[in-house]
């Protein structure tokens, strides 16, 4: 085991998202502002006309899909048959992150490296198929891999096996916020002596049953055209379009990374999480829980609101949630709010459950690298009522030494992560 360190840096990025496979593909698509929310292609959905005519029930018709992803391009066929699409995306992202970091677990003691992922809903498509087989054909039709493919720890377990990671691995489930919480856990592991952690989240809920479940959340947009899919802080925000994918990272002890000649894209300088403890689906009546997450994360980083260069907002995409986040930002940043750059580029690809904040961390690290921040995705009609200085239009060059990332999860989870640049 390496000596316990205090500082965790991110040295590798692996993106598998609607915006692209690989960090650079994602970054250039994001800078171009490509809207990747589109009508679902992976299965037939009720037509909007049928829904409007009352002959079909409402269901998600828009989603962000990872186009052109072929698991055979990235994974051993024997592994593909054992795993859900969610794990294919995670295993691919893990490989990309390790390559990007130049980190080979086999160069180190196997106990030095761990995998800590977040999972929103596990292996949806695999699970649907096997339950269907049981009920339509009987128990002998259920395959041997059902026991290991759909459950929430499947991707983490497979990553640990594929890469020989024997360190303290884990799986965090806290809705969307999990995409930040797993990075907080990775830092906790590093502070306790683990050298490096493969951490982050991908999701793959664009399957018939999972999307039907999503439609009951009350959070999905009624929009049917891509530009109506997900537009946080818009005058017309009415929910979000879901999506799949996300990002994994190599989080590494800063001193150990330095020994390898890597300073990392950025440092996990602060993190905190709170819960609304209010209602099963509605947000807290006031902004305090999110305010507390932001303040505690800043406090943890030893920073003040005045140090923050840009905020990656959660931007849930409903009027109620966006207003609450704007109020929370107002409480934390006070008079600075009118000039504080706020963005939410993830709305280009849909809301990927725990994949969204993970993807925002990837985007933020690339913004830090290039000194350029992409605008709020798919936002053409920002609502001034929020009182936010939203980045709109073109990507903007600006200081990016301290970036705050917010995430909120269905049911009241709030998390905040502070990234700082590495000297």
């Amino acid at each position, binding site marked *: 085991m390496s000596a316990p360190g205090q500082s965790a840096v991110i040295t590798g990025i692996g993106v598998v998202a609607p915006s692209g496979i690989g960090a650079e593909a994602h970054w250039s698509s994001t800078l171009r502002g490509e809207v990747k929310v589109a009508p679902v292609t992976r*299965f037939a959905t009720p037509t909007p006309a049928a829904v409007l005519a009352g002959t079909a*029930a409402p269901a998600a018709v828009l989603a962000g899909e990872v186009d052109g992803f072929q698991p055979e391009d990235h994974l051993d066929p024997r592994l593909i048959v*054992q795993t859900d699409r969610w794990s294919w995306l995670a295993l691919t992202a893990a490989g990309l992150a390790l390559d990007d970091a130049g980190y080979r677990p086999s160069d180190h003691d196997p*106990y030095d490296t761990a995998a800590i992922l977040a*999972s*929103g*809903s596990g292996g949806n498509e695999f*699970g649907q198929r*096997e*339950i*269907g*087989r*049981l*009920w*339509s*054909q*009987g*128990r002998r039709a*259920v395959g*041997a891999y*059902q*026991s*290991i493919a759909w*459950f*929430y*720890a499947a991707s*983490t*377990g*497979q990553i640990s*096996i594929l*890469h*020989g*990671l*024997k*360190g*303290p*691995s884990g*799986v*965090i*489930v806290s809705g969307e916020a999990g995409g930040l919480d797993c990075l907080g*856990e990775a830092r*906790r592991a590093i502070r306790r002596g683990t050298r490096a952690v493969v951490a982050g989240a991908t999701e793959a809920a664009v399957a018939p*049953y999972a999307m*039907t*479940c999503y*439609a*009951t959340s009350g*959070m999905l947009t009624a929009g049917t055209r891509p530009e109506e899919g997900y537009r946080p802080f818009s005058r017309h925000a009415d929910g979000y379009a879901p999506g799949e994918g996300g990002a994994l990272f190599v989080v590494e002890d800063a001193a150990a990374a330095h020994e390898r000649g890597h300073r990392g894209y950025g440092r996990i300088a602060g993190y*905190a*999480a709170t*819960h*609304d*403890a*209010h*209602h*099963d689906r509605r947000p807290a009546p006031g902004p305090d829980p999110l305010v507390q997450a932001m303040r505690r994360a800043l*406090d943890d980083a030893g920073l003040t609101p005045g140090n923050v260069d840009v905020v990656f907002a959660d931007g849930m995409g409903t009027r109620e949630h966006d207003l609450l986040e704007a109020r929370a930002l107002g409480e934390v940043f006070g008079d600075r709010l009118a000039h504080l750059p706020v963005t939410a580029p993830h709305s280009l690809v849909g809301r990927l459950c725990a994949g969204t904040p993970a993807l925002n961390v990837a985007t933020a690290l690339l913004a830090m690298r290039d000194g350029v921040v992409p605008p709020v995705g798919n936002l053409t009609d920002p609502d001034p009522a929020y009182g936010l200085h939203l980045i709109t239009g073109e990507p903007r060059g600006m200081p990016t030494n301290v970036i705050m990332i917010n995430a909120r999860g*269905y*049911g009241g*989870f709030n998390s905040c992560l502070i990234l700082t640049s590495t000297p």
Partner: protein
Amino acid sequence: MSTHTSTSAGPRRTVVTGVGVIAPGGTDSRAFWTLLTEGRTATRRISFFDPAQFRSQIAAECDFDPAAAGLDAQEIHRNDRFIQLALAAAAEAVTDSGLDLPAGAPDGGYGVGVSLGSAVGATTRLEDEYVAVSNSGRDWLVDPAYASSFLYHALVPSSLAGEVARRFGARGPAAVVSTGCTSGIDAIGRGHQLIQDGAADVVIAGATDAPISPISIACFDAIRATSARNDDPEHASRPFDATRDGFVMGEGAAVLVLEEWEHARRRGAHVYCEVTGYASRSNAYHMTGLRPDGVEMAEAITSALRQARTPATAVSYVNAHGSGTKQNDRHETAAFKRSLGSHAYQVPVSSIKSMVGHSLGAIGAIECAACALAIEHSVVPPTANWENRDPDCDLDYVPKTARDQRIDVALSVGSGFGGFQSAILLERATVTR
């Protein structure tokens, strides 16, 4: 900002001040403890559905009435049984702790965290509802018109942490830990770390699962992991016995109130025990297979002992994973010998799964509750049904009958699909460590 710094020198310590258990054979911690100390088994033929088509037709079921357990009508309606069980266990634990939640929560509720494990979440409800929307599995393109309104709540197991946070006004960090069958130990271990790190002064920690459903039985049938001793359900769970033939599915929940030592001391709380060490490792070998040498589990045990600065020879009780599969019990026995040395032959080792079955993610927390109660009452729970010696399993498994014995240091371990191996140490609390 509050940073929850400890008032005393040294690292922050975690004690257990409340215990709540909903387990097969009893619906509170008292009934659970009585079952264990009497060495009775709660395994039976499955009654929740007709199991005739399945290879394994037995399980350890809870006779649980959510309304009698204090859940309100809406909590019952919107939540799968795995959350209902957890709410009931959490209510017992919080009441037992004497904490006034949510009214008296520290730091306006921000000092109270939630760390709850589950391996399979709302799988039962998701399966039940799927039968309708897919017309008994025949339609891949399901009909959303047949979807009930709380399906998303079931799809995301994070609902578990949200429901418990809401009930008790816990505004601190809340999350579900889902590492298969080590979820319970890992959730409690993580709760301990939240307290150590100052992220909370109180953590509602534990785990729950309610997996007795056709798809869960079917998927373990497919890999022949469960016992097929259908003609003798009461004796089907036989950890460490030479004639064991697999685990018996169970269900249940256990919640511990974890509390920072000074916080508990200031309010004069009853302390069951202290969490002194926790570690998790992966075998990076196979999703379900275990090498017989137990190296990674031994590494987790050694790490937990090192954190606690407790010598292996001080361990007075080992609460085994003891699932009753051929490979697990052999793997684990090897891990105990590797980590505890010759002391492995001196210390009592038992598996309560012989009595309450294997409730997947929940069982690790139920076993921690058993350890807390064992320390409290100075009794070692037995391994029921142990009759025949297996040459690979040659330790003292406390066959059939509980043993009166002072327990200062209890070690509990878990092993799960995905290769996870976890160990936690619970010790009789003393002022100095």
